[in-house]
């Protein structure tokens, strides 16, 4: 039986991590279908159809799906699920919200944040903030799996799957969308950026983050932060990298003024190359860093920005 990937989207394109979820799904079963639910989701459905390895896109049009409320989306997925062996979502804030509701309605377990597909019923997932890796086997008839996008290489584009319309399920009438306060940024999105510049409490203020913005822009990097920096109000919550924030695995991660609590390391230690800049040479961040500099970040960061410029 086929796998159903439930795709989040912005009305125009499906999220970039859907291509990663499709790649993960293809390891569970070669036939992958993608569900694009929304209000005027035609363009998003077309973008899903272009992902290599997708056999079919199901487009569900309903005004109730416009804002991805779990109470309204879950019944649609539950209705379609019996035709599938697996339902897969990326483990982002949409997947984490919707997938467990689907699982409970189907009376099945959820495999949360799988990082490896061992076989169609067996998965590896991190526990204890990535300090242990559990291999779990599901005995449920339909397997609900959220996958960590950074652990699966995105499926390529250029596909042309058929798009089939499916009926909507209406609204459950339990919840409504009021509005969003989204961070505006021209920088690459944190979870898909090739380079991430991240700051911690060592920055001492939100104003000092401007220094990191300059460096990030020189490198074409995304900007992240530790929990301490977010809690201190230096930057918004969506900058947070870590166990309970975003998980990133860029080619280069530059941790600046971040001590390296295990909860932070959980969100970045799969990065290809890690650079740490910290005045405390005992900081745990140095244990995972490929290159470390001990010193005053207020001196080092401007120097680094200038050196990158000189290329």
């Amino acid at each position, binding site marked *: 039986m086929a796998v159903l990937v439930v795709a989040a989207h912005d009305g125009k394109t499906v999220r970039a991590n859907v291509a990663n979820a499709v790649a993960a799904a293809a390891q569970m079963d070669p036939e992958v279908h993608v569900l694009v639910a929304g209000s005027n989701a035609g363009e998003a459905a077309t973008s899903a159809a272009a992902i290599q390895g997708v056999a079919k896109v199901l487009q569900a049009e309903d005004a109730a799906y416009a804002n991805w*409320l779990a*109470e309204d989306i*879950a019944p649609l997925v539950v209705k379609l699920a019996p035709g599938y062996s697996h339902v897969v979502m990326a483990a982002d*804030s*949409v997947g*984490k*919200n919707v997938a*467990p*509701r689907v*699982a*409970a309605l189907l009376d*099945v*377990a*959820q*495999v*949360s*944040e799988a990082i490896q597909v061992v076989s169609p019923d067996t998965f590896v*997932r991190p526990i*204890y*903030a990535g*300090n*242990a*890796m*559990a*291999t*779990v*086997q*599901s*005995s449920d008839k339909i397997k609900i799996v959220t996958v960590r996008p950074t652990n699966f290489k995105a499926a390529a584009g250029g596909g042309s799957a058929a798009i089939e319309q499916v009926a909507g399920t209406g609204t*459950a*009438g*339990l*919840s*409504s969308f*009021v*509005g*969003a*306060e989204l*961070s505006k940024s021209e920088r690459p999105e944190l979870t898909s950026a090739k380079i991430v510049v991240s700051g911690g409490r060592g920055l001492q203020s939100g104003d000092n983050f401007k220094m990191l913005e300059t460096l990030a822009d020189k490198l074409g990097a995304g900007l992240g932060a530790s929990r301490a920096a*977010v*809690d201190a109000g230096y930057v918004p*919550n*969506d900058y947070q990298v870590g166990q*309970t924030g975003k998980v990133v695995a860029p080619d*280069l991660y530059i941790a600046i003024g971040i001590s390296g609590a295990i*909860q932070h390391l959980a969100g970045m*230690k799969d990065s290809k*190359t*890690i*650079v740490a800049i910290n005045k405390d040479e005992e900081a745990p961040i140095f244990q*995972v*860093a490929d*290159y*470390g*500099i*001990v010193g005053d970040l207020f001196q*080092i960061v401007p120097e*680094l920005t200038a*050196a990158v410029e000189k*290329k």
Partner: protein
Amino acid sequence: MKVLVAVKRVIDYNVKIRVKADNTGVETANVKMSMNPFDEIAVEEAIRMKEKGAATEVIAFSAGPAQCQETIRTALAMGADRGVLVQTDAELQPLAVAKLLKAVVDKEQPGLVIVGKQAIDDDSNATGQMLAALLGWSVGTFANKLNVADGSVEVKREVDGGLENIKIKMPAVITTDLRLNEPRYASLPNIMKAKKKPIETLAPDALGVDVAPRLKTLKVEEPPKRKSGIKVKTVTELVEKLRNEAGVI
């Protein structure tokens, strides 16, 4: 309105996790246990609702071995009124906990259930969403701010792109994110008082819930170690390494 909070006993967040040599799990013997940090935030939020007059009673729920009493006592010392422990030595997975919670919710009829968004041991991030599904209730996940008014809750949620506001009908389930509040420390007098607060103990069977795990853990292993890196002296040296050795800029 009653508010039910769920509290999980987990290995303290400061403890270095050790995988057992036989790969069956992680070492829990002689390890400091504490309340899941996200659940502390849930308890704090419920107590604040009571202090503001929005809630009449705060009930702390836990499920697991007898020692979970201590976790409930912590919630009682923070200000919860009474506890309910579903006592079992069986392994409990999120779906089973959600079913146990539902059975207690059916009995207690709270207007709100507040739980941590994830437990820092299994990192599943599922129980609250599952409970809402089983009850047919709305859910406000990853709550950054709550406002209870006129039979509904306005929930500011932490999402990938920033914050999102939704309005959900009560009764409802809320899962807490880090910035919802800063949990208080229990004072010594309140710790003493908590010893006298009642904790009801129930068995899964009595609630008619089958808690058998659906996921079988085949093995638990150490994560791959990163090879140790080097310290460089100057920015020039760093940039040279990044360009020529790592090839990432």
